[in-house]
């Protein structure tokens, strides 16, 4: 009898001395008793977490707990051990302990689960939902392949078989190019003419003939006036839209070198332009997006207001049904083509944490849009524009200035500003890096810098990527680079653009440039 009592007190003492033993239970846990039975009840052993040493702490998992069963087994085992003794051995204190065990448990249960299970019934409808037909899982696979296959691809070094040179083939001198993230100062037409806005002047560089033309000059508008955006019409290369710092959008006939019309509507600079056949959308610092029908006198067909800060990115989808807009308020909006001035965007996507400027619609898949965020965000995100679902997001580590899809391969090129000023070619959808052209190339020439200007694309036989650095991606699938050079310390006379334009890159002698000469 006495030995029994001592034993029980021992158990209690052990229980209190051991930090891991539940004080409330007063009865040792099963794993402890098991340890005892196996003769390995040293104090260090008993301090081990019950989860087989997987981690250093025990994280309870509510969903996986069957609380009812737990409480039942603990209470019944407590009663069992008590049942071994005669009534006289019960002190009142012990009885209190046991009672409190039961009440504690039910309290625990209700606090853990929120709802006391005993007060609720779990019901399900007897007729179950019809089983899905066919194999439906594969459709989602593509969403998941991104992360898993990029993981796999890290090990395989060979991503592309073609040669992608890392040196520029051509440097264009671009004095006075404004270094402003919010402006879109480059546009490449489908007739292979590049339009560049250098402060107050728009120059056209013909990539085939090498001819340089000065299209327009806004010096007459005052010393602070400058061109804030340029955009070629989708087809033909005959017309160029020019956005200005004083809110006007000009339309130029390039062949006649003549201004066709001037469209108003904005009260501040027009930093983004995008064409959809005869509709020209312009985005301004006044937070507005205006759709102009350039054929008619009353050109303003819609004023879209949803953004609360400067609009800096605009892109019509290839099918002409959706307009994507990004702004400094970190919002990405998707507008139906039929949107009127009173409409709200189809989606307002707020996932970016910084200004959204880089927008690129996939030429391969309908409704696939890639967007890039500013310095605070640094992510390239992919969207299904029908559902508004974000398909993927990758952190690039740098401000994303522009994105450009490769029309031949499932690849996307991104150009970056701060912090690393790199140019990066990604495989889609794995988002494995195919090629990264880092600042080293640019730093080696001290007067070179990646200006924060966007890419635009040449969809002809000669495939071009354009950024602050241009990459020529030819049909034979080699990638050549042309760098648009900014001379920062010494602004040259504007005419110097001409002789400097075709200065061939000295470090790149292995590429045949005869077609450009």
């Amino acid at each position: 009898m006495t030995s029994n009592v001592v034993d029980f007190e021992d158990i209690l003492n052990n229980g209190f001395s051991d930090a891991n033993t539940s004080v409330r239970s007063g009865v040792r846990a099963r794993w402890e008793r098991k340890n005892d039975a196996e003769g390995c009840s040293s104090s260090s052993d008993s301090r081990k977490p019950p989860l087989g040493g997987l981690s250093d702490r025990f994280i309870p998992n509510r969903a996986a707990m069957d609380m009812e069963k737990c409480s039942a087994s603990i209470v019944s085992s407590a009663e069992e051990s008590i049942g071994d003794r005669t009534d006289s051995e019960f002190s009142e204190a012990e009885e209190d302990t046991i009672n409190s065990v039961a009440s504690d448990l039910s309290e625990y249960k209700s606090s853990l689960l929120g709802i006391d299970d005993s007060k609720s019934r779990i019901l399900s409808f007897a007729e179950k939902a019809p089983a899905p037909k066919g194999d439906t899982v594969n459709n989602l696979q593509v969403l998941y392949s991104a992360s898993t296959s990029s993981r796999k691809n890290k090990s395989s070094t060979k991503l592309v078989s073609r040669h992608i040179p890392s040196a520029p083939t051509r440097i264009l001198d671009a004095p006075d190019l404004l270094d402003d993230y919010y402006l879109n100062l480059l546009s490449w037409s489908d007739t292979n003419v590049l339009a560049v806005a250098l402060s107050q002047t728009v120059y056209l560089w013909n990539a085939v003939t090498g001819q340089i033309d000065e299209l327009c000059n806004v010096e007459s508008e005052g010393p602070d006036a400058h061109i804030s955006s340029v955009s070629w019409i989708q087809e033909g290369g005959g017309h160029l839209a020019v956005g200005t710092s004083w809110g006007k959008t000009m339309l130029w006939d390039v062949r006649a070198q003549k201004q066709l019309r001037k469209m108003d509507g904005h009260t501040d600079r027009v930093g983004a332009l995008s064409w959809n056949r005869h509709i020209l959308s312009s985005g301004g610092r006044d937070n507005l997006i205006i759709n102009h029908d350039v054929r008619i006198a009353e050109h303003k067909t819609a004023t879209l207001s949803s953004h609360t800060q400067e609009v800096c990115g605009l892109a019509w989808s290839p099918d002409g049904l959706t307009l994507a807009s990004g702004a400094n308020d970190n919002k990405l909006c998707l507008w139906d083509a039929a949107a009127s001035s009173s409409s709200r965007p189809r989606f307002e996507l707020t996932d970016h944490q910084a200004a959204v400027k880089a927008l690129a619609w996939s030429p391969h898949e309908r409704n696939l849009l890639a967007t890039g965020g500013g310095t605070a965000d640094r992510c390239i995100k992919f969207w299904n524009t029908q559902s508004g679902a974000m398909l993927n997001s990758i952190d690039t580590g740098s401000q994303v200035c522009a994105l450009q899809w490769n029309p031949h391969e499932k690849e996307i090129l991104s150009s970056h500003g701060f912090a690393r000023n790199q140019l990066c070619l990604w495989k889609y959808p794995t988002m494995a890096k195919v090629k990264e052209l880092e600042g080293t190339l640019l730093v080696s020439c001290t007067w070179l810098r990646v200006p924060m200007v966007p890419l635009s694309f040449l969809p002809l036989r000669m495939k071009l990527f354009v950024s602050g650095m241009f990459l020529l991606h030819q049909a034979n699938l080699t990638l050549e680079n042309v760098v648009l050079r900014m001379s920062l310390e010494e602004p040259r006379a504007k005419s110097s653009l001409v002789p400097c334009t075709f200065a061939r890159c000295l470090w790149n002698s292995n590429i045949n440039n005869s077609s450009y000469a």
Partner: protein
Amino acid sequence: MVASDTVITLKGSVEIVSEFFFAAINSILYQRGIYQPETFKRESKYGLTVLTTTDQGLLTYLSSVMSQMESWLTDGDVQRLALVVSGIDSGETLERWQFNVSVDNGTDGSVEISRAGNDENKSHNVIKDNIIDNKATKMGKKTVKEVHDEIQAIIRQITASVTFLPLLNEPCSFDLLIYTNTSAVVPKKWADSDPCYIMNSQEVKLRSFTTSFHKVDSMVTYKEKDEWEL
């Protein structure tokens, strides 16, 4: 549907909650690929495009569950709704979407008694009337628009959940479990079920929304991947 500038009544709240459940269930079924994407149609709701099923069998099932749900909601008997996704072959529960419903007492309860036209409802609302005064200023001011904005956030989270939920790598089916008060009147077609908890699960809490009468919390639990991979 209640006009967007009016105060939400109990009946309106029940409608909102069950409409939300319908949209949420459909979104989950679509986003998780449980039914073929072609069987869904786009519908504009809550300022979003919500995909809803066109499968007749599924619609019948959902509407019978929803109508029962509505009557329980009106009686204040619903505690939560769980959508359990389990593998058809393995029978294992892989995902569990849970929506906790708690009844907040709002204004206008007395007005609704007559409209709801249900005896049990009446007694329920009479009890509520006693508490109304305390909460009248706080609740009941919310417009449908505000509620829709909150719902929009949840649906968006469901849509975005594909980014963290593991791929359902086998054909799956789903079941709806409704937790009710023990006092609830249960029609014959309804049977008690086990809670279908998931072993080794991860839990992600989603947003919640409130109407003048109901507060709905949502969360998803899913099966942790077997191996630890980085």
